[in-house]
């Protein structure tokens, strides 16, 4: 009997001792425990790579809140400058935001999927159009129907390339947004999301195709100043975006040698595209002179261009007296009036200056040489004007003298008429 009572008492003592031991916890430890679990949840939210993971974390946050609800008063004091409620709210908000990221990624993946189909169709169409254009260019048949057909094909190709470029640019832009919204160093989840987008959108292939099709398009068609200006603008925008995402993509694909090579290849393609556009601009300008039988030394940059024109003018001045005067004058007026002032200056010079292919100073140098050239070729040109001005000035002076003479006569006559009346 005594033994049973003793045993029960012992159990009770042990039980209460255990309870006391549980309660005998440091407030500091409780706070540290809360902080550690909080930090762990925060990290898990950041590292989550699926929507399901975030959903599970939302439940963990609710459990965490319940676990520490009894210590709210203590935590309100110790979580300075936060308190228990605001700390939990922050966690819940972080989870909600992360959920939003995944919803957006799912939407973007769907969007990219649709774009991919459209892109594949456009790529195929463009390839076929390029072949047709080349066939027609090499065909012996050059009748009006063929030319019309060629023009139609070129117009479709141009529209298609533009549409496809916009689609690819859309993918690149959305990637850029993701990169700029992400912190400077991407975590694994962010890297995976970008990796998926790049692969789903077949980004590398499409960027390569965009550039090479534009280059091909320039090869098979003759472009106007406006076309080339648009293309240059497009190149600048596209390459600027690529320069922003290229290095970051290189980071993501650091361990994939073939992808790293592809990224470097795309950089090179951008350089070629720019080179080709510049070349096309200079060729078109040269073509404008050639069409008027003016042959200039070849030029591919602003220095060469200025040099080529000044050399041409120097040669023309040297040849004065060797060639017939009328011939020299005709060359001068064709060069300046028909080509420079009518075509090159209004159509090409603004593009050249805007794209830093020619400087204002170089343009001024060329135009100063025109004035010097004119003085040699047609010195009467300016003198003739002076004669007209002198004649006009003389005529004005004569009219003034005549007017003064007439008014003086009138006055004298009036005085003579009044004088006899006064004598009366």
């Amino acid at each position, binding site marked *: 009997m005594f033994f049973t009572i003793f045993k029960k008492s012992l159990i009770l003592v042990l039980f209460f*001792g255990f309870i006391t031991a549980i309660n005998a916890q440091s*407030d500091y430890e409780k706070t540290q425990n809360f902080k550690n679990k909080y930090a762990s949840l925060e990290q898990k939210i950041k590292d989550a790579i699926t929507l399901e993971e975030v959903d599970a974390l939302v439940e963990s946050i609710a459990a965490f809140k319940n676990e520490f609800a009894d210590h709210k008063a203590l935590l309100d004091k*110790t979580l300075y400058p936060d308190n228990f409620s605001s700390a939990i709210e922050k966690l819940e908000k972080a989870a909600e935001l992360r959920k939003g990221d995944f919803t957006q990624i799912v939407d973007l993946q769907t969007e990219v999927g649709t774009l991919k189909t459209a892109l594949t169709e456009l790529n195929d169409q463009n390839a076929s159009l390029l072949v047709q254009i080349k066939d027609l260019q090499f065909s012996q048949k050059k009748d009006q129907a063929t030319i019309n057909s060629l023009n139609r094909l070129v117009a479709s190709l141009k529209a298609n390339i533009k549409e496809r470029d916009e689609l690819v640019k859309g993918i690149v832009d959305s990637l850029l947004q993701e990169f700029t919204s992400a912190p400077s160093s991407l975590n694994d989840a962010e890297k995976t999301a970008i990796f998926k987008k790049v692969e789903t959108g077949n980004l590398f292939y499409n960027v390569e195709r965009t550039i090479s099709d534009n280059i091909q398009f320039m090869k098979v068609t003759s472009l106007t100043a406006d076309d080339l200006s648009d293309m240059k603008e497009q190149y600048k925008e596209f390459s600027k975006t690529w320069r922003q995402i290229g290095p970051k993509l290189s980071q993501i694909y650091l361990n994939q040698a073939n992808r790293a090579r592809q990224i470097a290849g795309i950089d090179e393609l951008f350089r070629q595209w720019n080179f080709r556009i510049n070349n096309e601009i200079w060729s078109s300008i040269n073509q404008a002179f050639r069409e008027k039988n003016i042959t200039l030394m070849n030029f591919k940059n602003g220095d060469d261009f200025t040099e080529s024109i000044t050399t041409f003018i120097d040669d023309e001045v040297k040849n004065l007296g060797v060639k017939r005067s009328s011939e020299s004058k005709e060359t001068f007026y064709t060069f300046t009036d028909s080509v420079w002032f009518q075509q090159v200056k209004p159509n090409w010079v603004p593009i050249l200056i805007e794209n830093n292919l020619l400087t204002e100073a170089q343009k001024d140098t060329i135009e100063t040489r025109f004035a010097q050239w004119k003085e040699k070729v047609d010195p009467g040109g300016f003198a003739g004007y002076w004669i007209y001005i002198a004649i006009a000035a003389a005529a004005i002076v004569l009219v003034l003298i005549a007017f003064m003479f007439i008014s003086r006569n009138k006055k004298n006559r009036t005085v003579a008429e009044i004088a006899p009346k006064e004598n009366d």
Partner: protein
Amino acid sequence: MKSKAFFLSLILLGTAACSSIVLQPADYSWPIENVLKVDDLGFVSETRYTFRINVKNLFNEEFKDSTSFKGKELRIIRDAKGYYYATGNEFKNVYVLMTQENGMKVENIIPVSQAGLKSPVMNQKNNSIELIDNGLKTYFTNKGIEGK
């Protein structure tokens, strides 16, 4: 008579101007203790309440060894009156400290364990500080252990 009254009012005015201004009541208590690592130079730094103090003398007093502070932790808590209580592993005492110009002065030493504390923690309670070590709870103020 008039001059006496004048001098009396001067004395009264002077007394009023010299009396010290006291702001009361105040609550200096920290909600939880702080566990601070002693650095190689013997300093502990508290970031939330921003102070830095050299505690070598405290360890020297406790362990009679001038290098005993190295790698140790010091647990500190402050009560509502503004007294600091410091102790740590293997300490036999809790030190009651009060700030003074450019330092802290030990105001009281409270013996709490003959063998030295094993894993002490201190909590802020209503009118005292709670010390828990090995499940044993002791309550004290700056004057000493309560109930003694």
